[in-house]
């Protein structure tokens, strides 16, 4: 009984952390720029592919591949933001949604051509491929690493957003963009940096989470509903909201699938609908 509960909690936490790492950037960019980026998952998949290529084809160590995924995807994000996303700030939702779907489709086609339609797994370092024993129960060490990584990224983001000058500007612009501009914040630059940061973290999440959400060309479409749910339930423009939302959704989903498998993903959607109806702006949303 207790073993089952701990197992559910552990795997739920690992799932939640992957959801959080991938989604948090989406929430920040949506809150800051009001841009509904449905292609966010494609950036996460790109990060996953970078880690796969770096560890499998180039033989680089996992610990080098992860920062490489962050940097590559962040750069790609910055380029996309500068070239096209920028022109759609302030456009109506339908156009933003359609454009990001277009981006997503092209990414899916590109990934299929470059890496084939099958699932890809990165090479995991030996130190993480064993088991860890907690309270007399064996857990996969890699998933323990995922949980630690999720908490570390939350802490890093909290420091960045809450304690640095750039974070201060981001918070100011989320609260009131016009006012921030009026007091001299360069929001153009800020938007590019934030978009790059958000997509970069997603890329990191894609790489770290390949064990939980497997890397396939359709990654960005398959898990899109989950990422959007985390953001919508957590609240836009917040870093703690999505964390809480991911915890809820991860644990509820794993528990539901473990205890009543015939109901499948039924629970997660039920919970989401209930939360959104009670709090349309999410847990920590500054606006809906």
């Amino acid at each position, binding site marked *: 009984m207790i073993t089952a509960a701990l197992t559910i909690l552990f795997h739920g936490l690992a799932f939640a952390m992957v959801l959080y790492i991938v989604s948090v950037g989406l929430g920040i960019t949506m809150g800051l720029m009001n841009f*509904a980026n449905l292609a966010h998952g494609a950036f996460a998949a790109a990060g996953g592919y970078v880690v796969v290529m770096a560890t499998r084809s180039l033989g680089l160590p996992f610990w080098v591949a992860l920062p490489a995924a962050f940097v590559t995807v962040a750069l790609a994000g910055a380029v996309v933001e500068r070239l096209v996303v920028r022109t759609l700030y302030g456009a109506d939702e339908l156009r933003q949604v359609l454009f990001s779907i277009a981006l997503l489709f092209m990414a899916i086609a590109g990934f299929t051509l470059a890496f084939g339609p099958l699932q890809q797994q990165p090479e995991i370092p030996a130190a993480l491929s064993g088991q860890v024993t907690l309270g007399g129960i064996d857990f996969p060490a890699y998933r323990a690493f995922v949980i630690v990584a999720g908490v570390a990224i939350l802490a890093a983001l909290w420091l960045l957003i809450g304690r640095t000058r750039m974070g201060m500007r981001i918070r100011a612009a989320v609260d009131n963009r016009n006012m921030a501009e009026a007091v001299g914040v360069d929001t153009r630059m800020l938007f590019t940096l934030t978009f790059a940061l958000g997509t970069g973290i997603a890329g990191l999440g894609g790489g770290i989470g390949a064990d939980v959400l497997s890397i396939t060309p359709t990654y960005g479409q398959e898990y899109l509903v989950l990422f959007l749910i985390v953001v919508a339930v957590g609240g836009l423009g917040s870093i703690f909201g999505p964390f809480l939302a991911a915890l809820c959704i991860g644990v509820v989903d794993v528990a539901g699938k473990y205890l009543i498998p015939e109901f499948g993903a039924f629970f997660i959607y039920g919970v*989401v609908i209930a939360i959104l109806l009670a709090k349309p702006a999410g847990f920590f949303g500054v606006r809906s």
Partner: protein
Amino acid sequence: MARPIPRNEPVKSLSVSYQGAAASSTWRGLAMGRGGSDLVIAVLLGLAALATLLFGEAYWLLAAQVAITMIFALSVDLLVGFAGIVTLGHAVFFGLGAYAVGIASVQFGWTEPLSALLLAGAVSALLGAATGVLVLRTRGLGQLMLTMAFASLVYEIANRAKPLTGGADGLQGMVVSPVAGLFEFDIFGLTAFVYTLAVLIVVVIFAVLMTRSPYGRSLVGIRENRVRMQAIGTGVQRRLLSIYIVSAALAGIAGALLAQTSQFVGLNVLHFSLSGEILIIVALGGAGRLWGALLGAVVFTLFKDRLSALDPAYWYFWLGLLLAVIVLFAPKGLIGLVDRLLALFRSKEAA
């Protein structure tokens, strides 16, 4: 026009401003839109349908699919283009309509197609009423999410309720009686084509009349300025809910037609990608213009038939590229291009 025309005003700019004024007037008769684009598209589509009927027996099944997509696109355009409600889960109504006639036929022996069509519309309308009340409480991202969450929920139910829906294998063994007791569904798809075409014509007439009515104009008013519409005494929430239900019913009828003409229902009728695709179709044709949505449905389905036969991955790439180009450079869609072409034509004629 009775308005006096000042002599020194250039004629060209006058005709442009007149066109704009005409488009926003309340009643301009059937199929008459901005600069006659609607009429041109209607005539072209009618000729294409006639030619397919007479000479294109190899394309009858594809044509039936096109007609079904057109009905589905109309239902989404009414919601997204006219009332300004963004949805990423409209496949739920399409799929429910398909499953409604499928299950009615397999489980209850309800094989009469026309009444089954009404049944599908009613079932989808019921779901539309139930979810619409909740979806319309939120706006923006929350609304988008709720439509997606409801669609995912129903997808999951259909996936799990194997005894009723056949799950991932699809619903098999569906029987459909001859239409009106006379026309058996044939292997060439002649009955399927004529049947879906007839339903399409009825739906188009209904949609045109509705969007030209004061009710339809009030929906556009709500899209453009909700607060103002509320201030002048429009029951905004009630109107949005009613169009949500109407749109759900039309989508259900489209789904039912697909089930009847293919005599099979698969889980893909409920899938997220269908919700995305239909939104793309509406944007491709031009959101907020009925004939745009119809044109978009034709172009999209034909392109998909050709390109996805080559390689699905290529198809996704071209679809994405086409969509990006439309969003960035032609936000008014294909019908916007037709508008421009006609305007060009007319200005040349005047010169």
